[in-house]
């Protein structure tokens, strides 16, 4: 298929960016979206132009590096996937595809489609851990039975890949789904109880400091999340925060 691409180009974080049109031809429907971008970049390199910078690494939907906003949707027009798992069979010959970076005040653009997600790092550094030394001198793993239900629910929250699609999708650029997932993973496990109050307070405070917006329960984040992280995690985080503040 032949396509027109409208891509956000921005030389660096200080430069003024703009949408630029490109044409690509003979794109196979079996290609992944990023392989289509590889074709474009090979074309640009061979014609002496600057290729489009974009984040990507594992190309199997787990590292959370890729981050494009395609035709107005984080990770494009398919559900339960990252950009690297999007395939060209979702598009038609002659389509015009708009490709932007993830947009949020807390995710400044570094170059073209690459954004800075260090805010997520700082939130996790504020409390996204259990304070146990890695000495190996802990108790035997099976001395602490954890109900299958709790373990499964914690696992569901822990599958978050930290890509930031929730933030990019949210009209308020809220990071509540991301933070809710991390808080929930530990809140659901007995190991996480000791520090639960401090954890949720510190992580939420850091989230606010980073300039993310508030949650207004629209639910778009859950729909666009490549890992299907549920809104329940936001509710759980709110409960945890309330509990922490009144105790």
């Amino acid at each position, binding site marked *: 298929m032949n396509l027109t691409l409208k891509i956000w180009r921005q030389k660096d974080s200080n430069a003024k960016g703009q949408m630029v049109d490109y044409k690509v031809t003979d794109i196979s429907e079996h290609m992944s979206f990023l392989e289509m971008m590889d074709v474009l970049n090979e074309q640009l390199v061979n014609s002496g132009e600057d290729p489009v910078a974009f984040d990507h690494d594992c190309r199997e939907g787990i590292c959370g590096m890729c981050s494009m906003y395609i035709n107005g949707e984080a990770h494009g027009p398919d559900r339960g*996937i990252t950009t690297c798992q999007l395939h060209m069979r979702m598009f038609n010959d002659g389509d015009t595809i708009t490709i932007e970076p993830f947009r949020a005040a807390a995710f400044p653009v570094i170059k073209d489609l690459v954004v800075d997600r260090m805010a997520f790092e700082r939130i996790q550094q504020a409390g996204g851990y259990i304070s146990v030394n890695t000495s190996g001198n802990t108790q035997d793993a099976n001395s602490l039975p954890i109900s299958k239900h709790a373990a499964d629910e914690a696992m569901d929250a822990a599958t978050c890949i930290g890509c930031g699609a929730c933030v990019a999708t949210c009209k308020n650029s809220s990071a509540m789904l991301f933070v809710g997932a991390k808080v929930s993973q530990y809140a659901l496990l007995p190991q996480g109880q000791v520090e639960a109050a401090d954890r949720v307070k510190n992580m939420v405070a850091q989230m606010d400091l980073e300039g993310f917006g508030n949650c207004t329960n629209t639910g778009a984040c859950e729909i666009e999340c490549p890992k299907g992280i549920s809104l329940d995690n936001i509710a759980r985080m709110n409960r945890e925060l309330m509990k922490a503040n009144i105790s």
Partner: protein
Amino acid sequence: MALDSKVPKGPIKDKWTDYKNHIDLVNPANKRHIDVIVVGTGLAGGSAAATLAELGYNVKAFAYQDSPRRAHSIAAQGGINAAKNYQGDGDSTYRLFYDTVKGGDYRSREANVHRLAEVSANIIDQCVAQGVPFARDYGGLLDNRSFGGVLVSRTFYAKGQTGQQLLLGAYSAMNRQIARGKIEMFNRHEMLDVVKVDGKARGIIARNLITGEIERHSAHAVVIASGGYGNVYFLSTNAMGSNATAAWKIHKKGAYFANPCFTQIHPTCIPRSGDYQSKLTLMSESLRNDGRIWVPANMEDAKAIQERKLKPTEIAEEDRDYFLERRYPAFGNLVPRDVASRAAKERCDAGFGVNATGEAVFLDFASAIERYGKTQAKVQNINNPSAEKIYELGQAIVEEKYGNLFQMYEKIVDENPYETPMMIYPATHYTMGGVWVDYNLMTTVEGLYCIGEANFSDHGANRLGASALMQGLADGYFVLPYTIGDYLSDDIRTGKIPTDTKEFDEAEKEVKERIEFFINNKGTKSVDHFHKRLGKVMWDKVGMARNEKGLKEAMAEIKAIREEFWKEVNVPGSANEMNPELEKAGRVADFLELGELFAKDALVREESCGGHFREESVELDGPQKGEAKRNDKDFAFVSAWEYKGEPADAVLHKEELEFKDIELKQRSYK
């Protein structure tokens, strides 16, 4: 220089304990005067950085991604082995040790492997304490699954995302230390050289991938945890950015490179679909617990399948060749990876492949769905369940176990693997070879360590499934923190290592000159063009089956591609900006050298063992006819290569392997 593995004396089961009891320690007050650089933040590097920081050292950690959590350990699916014997099925430290040495086709160092088995159980305790949500049974205890090449169930898992969960555990431990200021984290940084002062590793030169700035970082010791070199094949299950640059740079500065030809071709990956393909996707080995691998038994059926005139579900049971079950009745679909890959290639080469290119076999879940469905019907007291009901119940179980893998497959291939068998084919996955290290995990350069997949140590010629995560975390959490302390105890009075010295000047100059060369070369061909050509030579001539003629050709061809690369490579943009093409150019330049050494190593090793299969070395008769033939008399050694300029001029050093605790036997899975 003679190789000294520094394996402690004494009985194998006491070596590690005695060693720990007798090493020098650094007192807590002195640790804060000592800096350690860790390059790479996957399971090995992340766990090492966190533990060293907890102990009190000042750690500087480097990752080329925007977060340590994105290192490619994140993509490991199936699980992590540990000799817990929770299932009571006869597992023990000795069995894990034995299985790993045997699975590695007797080409690993006994003492290292035994230590790995000893600390394995502790890894699970540690991860659970960190909040890693491993799968559990209804009683609340940890669940296990089986993996290839063993007869016990010792693999712990978190759905099909075990690597992700373990890495997030190590990452959370890192975050705790980053918050305390004990780890200084350098995201989006790439190490481009190591700096040696008086023969010791004392720092690195790194490039800030956002600004292009070249930075100097000093430390009392340097730890390389940068993963494997599978991307030398261009197509592999590695991440796009996975590279050998850190490992190759230290090789050029004196670290020997061991067993480069020991590379794992994983049997269950999604087959390639076209020339544009950028990477291959693994389908976890855990699928072989329940999936059965087959091709049509008759050539007419195979042809019809290839031409899409027949559906796999239309082929009757008796017309299917479950070739692993046929050839290896004892282990069946759970033979080790090298054996499974070669068997698939054998069927496809004979014309029985099941896709248009003839390079695919089926992985079928129909019988597992039926089996689970019947069990569930009993559990739920459903009498005389219909076939539909059984299917529905069984599908739910399979979905719970492997749901994310099935979804991944469907998104890539556009076929529903619950309804039609998956198509799979072997692909490059893991490199057992790597930087040579002694028992302390130190390379042949003093103060320079190498851990995880980047080193060569524990898997011999073939790694068993679910052992990579085990080794990465063992090295980082439990081994390196002891061994490096013994070395650093001599450095308590050294003081900060200055970076304004001639050694740093020279290393930085070299790095800058190479970058300038790429930017100014203005050639005619892209970096990927050369990488793809290298990959094709590697796959065709240094892939699943190798022979003398092909290897000699490969060495010459790789050298020619390398020479052309340095003349014709085109890198757009400038040095002082984010420039992904420049990053790739540096990495491919290193792969173009490593590839040739790889072929040379394969040429020298005139035996078949593990993932290294020489067509000249097969069993000619007896019950093992057609199987790989190892030659212990002449090749029971580790090849450790010393850099001498051109890869073809590398000098071979041999570390002879002694097997005192395990009898050398032919590896039979029949």
